[in-house]
């Protein structure tokens, strides 16, 4: 089984199911939009009738930033709550949506519509929710604990350091270890979800253990596939950042243009998300 072929097939499957991307985009956009509306009014309240509004339209400026920080210094804690709580709800929402995404991608002969998408969401929600609870424990153990242990082993080198070099090496090493650990765990739970859908089993713990066995036997292949898709995400992000970096943003036309461009990027992200699942399903199917 050639990894690259799986990857390409994943892209094709994702493209065939473009409707899912549209559903996900609408949900992401509306959810974010609701969160940003109060921000808009908060900014607009002060700035729309001030010349500072013009400065703000011109770009980032430490004068208006200073005014904002001073004005909103008392609600900074409230802002943290405003970020955390909706994020948790969104996480729950995605546990629900994953059922639809994987459910639809795993039956590639049937056309996606709202009905079958959401009925999949509903069908798999409780299984995925249980899996999510397991995953939290695993994240804590592996990414939290193991990362901490590795960190404290590495600390032996930094503790006695007499130049900055060991710190630079260790902190970069820690970033790499963190990312690798994280990708492995994340990939593992992708396959656990796929297994639950394809085998249509309700025994979450048993299927999770099966997934462990499945991945153990062809670990480097699956991981290479996962990292290849990560690379695609990285490339899309860099293209976005580089282009947005040089785009002017100070007229209404360009504000609109950048808005469109940003939404294309979000589409790109969602597309990559589909490619992850589609390729992983393809890979899983081949071996099971």
């Amino acid at each position: 089984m050639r990894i690259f072929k799986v990857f390409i097939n994943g892209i094709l499957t994702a493209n065939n199911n473009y409707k899912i991307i549209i559903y996900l985009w609408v949900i992401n956009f509306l959810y974010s939009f609701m969160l940003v509306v109060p921000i808009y009014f908060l900014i607009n309240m002060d700035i729309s009738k001030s010349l500072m509004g013009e400065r703000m339209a011109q770009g980032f400026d430490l004068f208006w930033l200073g005014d904002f920080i001073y004005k909103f210094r008392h609600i900074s804690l409230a802002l943290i709550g405003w970020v955390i709580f909706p994020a948790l709800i969104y996480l729950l929402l995605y546990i629900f949506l994953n059922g639809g995404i994987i459910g639809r991608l795993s039956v590639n002969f049937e056309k996606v519509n709202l009905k079958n998408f959401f009925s999949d969401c509903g069908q798999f929600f409780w299984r995925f929710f249980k899996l999510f609870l397991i995953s939290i424990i695993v994240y804590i153990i592996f990414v939290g604990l193991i990362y901490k242990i590795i960190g404290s082993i590495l600390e032996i080198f930094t503790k006695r350091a007499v130049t900055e070099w060991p710190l630079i090496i260790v902190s970069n090493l820690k970033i790499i270890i963190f990312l690798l650990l994280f990708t492995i765990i994340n990939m593992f739970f992708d396959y656990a979800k796929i297994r639950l859908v394809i085998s249509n089993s309700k025994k979450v713990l048993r299927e999770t253990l099966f997934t462990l066995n499945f991945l153990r036997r062809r670990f480097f292949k699956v991981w290479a596939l996962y990292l290849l898709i990560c690379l695609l995400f990285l490339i899309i992000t860099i293209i976005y950042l580089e282009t947005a970096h040089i785009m002017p943003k100070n007229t209404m036309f360009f504000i609109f243009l950048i808005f469109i461009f940003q939404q294309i990027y979000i589409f790109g992200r969602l597309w990559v998300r589909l490619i992850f699942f589609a390729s992983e399903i393809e890979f899983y199917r081949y071996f099971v």
Partner: protein
Amino acid sequence: MRIKIIHILISIFLMHPLILYSQDKKLIDKVKYEIWVELDHQNRMLYGREIISWLNDTEDEISDFWFHLYWNAFKNEKSAVLEESREEQFYRIKVKDGEWGWIDVRNIRIVDGADLTPTIQFVSPDEPKRIDDQTVIKVILPKPLKPGEWINFEIIFEAKIPRTVLRAGYYHNAYFIAQWFPKPGVYEEGKGWNCHQYHLTSEFYADFAEFKVHITVPQEFVVGASGKLISLKENKEKGTVTYIYWQNHIHDFAWTADPDYIKIERLFIADKEVSKEEYREVAKILNLPLEDIKLKDVKMILLINPEHKNQIERHFKALRIAIKYHGLWYGPYPYETITMVDPPFRSRCGGMEYPTLFTAGTRIFQSKKVLSPEGVIVHEFGHGYWYGMCANNEFEEAWLDEGINTYSTGKILAKAYGPSSFFIRIGGIPYTRYIDSVKYYDFQLDRILGIQIVKFDPIVKKSWKFYNSASYGLNVYQRASTCLHTLERLLGEDIMLKVLRTFHMKYRFKHPNTQDFISVVNEVSGRDMRWFFNELFFKANEFDYGVSSLISKKIKTARGVFDKNGKKEEITSKMAKEIDKKIKEPRYLTIVKVKRFGEAKLGGDVKLKVKVVFEDGTEEIKYWDGKSRWNEFRFIKKTKAKYAVIDPENIFLIDSNITNNSLKLKPSRKGALRWSNKVLFWIQNFLQYVSIFS
């Protein structure tokens, strides 16, 4: 401090031969130190002996003598520094077991006289009382010291070097030795000893002195110190080297030793660094003869760590810029040497100033777009001009040093380098990509920080008595600097330069206070600016003026009953409309209300400019003294107003709300849209990142 010439003459000839060292005949240091110190690297100890000669240049008879023993701040958790740190929210320092430091006076006597050791007592003069603090001692003299007399002490001391937690100490093989020897406080005529304990948020105060210091270290150590190296003796048998450093007209002495330092010496050649054109330009602004502007050559000594070798040129370039602009603007650098120390890794002594020596600080990876280490080099060198030569009492009025220096650092960095970029450091590597389009000047950053802290403390306050360390820092650095930028905008850049030049040269080698600074401002500007300092330096009041209302309406024909030709005539709504229709050039009434939102008030001859711009492009300018809570201005014009703005040139940088300084008639949503759009995108991405865990 006033020096009585006759006393000095007598003392020169009768009492103190050391005075002949002094190069500057006009200026006599009232304290002379000769210190012999040996570093015991194995045991992390210093063994020292010092001869202190001290002149009573006051009219008082002095019966006791106070000394700082700063290192006892690291002796135990009962010291003021460590207690204050434990009571603090933001600024915690912790000494680990076995890493304490302390200093003991083994013996103190008057040379050829009484042993004062039995009279030693610890004193804690500052509130709140911390009676177990041991950073100040006093001794009782057998007979009072008369005005004009010198006294000579011999002190034997030993000190355990702390693992650095605050400015001085060791890490690995590196030593940074500061605040290390028993040091007299400052005796103030009629007031007594000004000798504060070592506090968490305060720096130092001492008399100008002449130092001769013999430093003995194991031979493998590279040494740097205040002043200039006058000789060096090797002791092959013991494997040590003794360096002798000398400097007059300084009020502190610091040194450092580390076998790993790379030591490089370069010359600042004034004629190469400054063009004739630059000299002429500054001379013209300051209205001074060219010879007063001329700089002297300076020997620059850099002690740098091997891993920062590739930044040697960056260090020297920044130092040359610092010597040049401080010299041109505030007065030529008077000393022969300047030693710049790249603090050894983890030595926690970076970014600190001492006379003719300072510590900078850098990292292995630095971005060329970011002014680091340049900022810290210019800043710490700059302290040599304010704390160093205009030696204010940093315990009591820290802003005179930190505030002025933050201001002057910003001016010099802007002039020599232009704006800086933001960066983020990940894994020790700085990244500026995607955020480097945002450039900023120091004064902008100072304002953001400076306006946040109002209402806690005024800028002028005893350093350890601020609400917390954040209030101390933000007030004496950034808020003071922002006020000085405001002052500059009020007086004009050239006058401000003259103010600082005059202040510096008038108080060079003296101890100025805030009142002295205010006097110079008034004298040089020819204006009474006392109100400015009363409102912004001595009170914790918010400064915020703004436009609170803008109304602009067509003037309509008035309805109602009017007396006309002895008869009553009613103008009805219909009639009024008809009349209005016939008017070819309608007129508009504009009413602008300006308001003082903050407690801080304008004063003196200063008025706020109020500018109203109309739709036809015409402008009206009015002035308001800003003393009342609000004021209004009325205009009758052919067009409606577009917007009104108070302080359109942003002279009052200290205004904590610039947004309310202007008011438009019609709102524009462009700014809010642009940034809400950006926030929308951030939220969309953030949520997608969160969903990875689903």
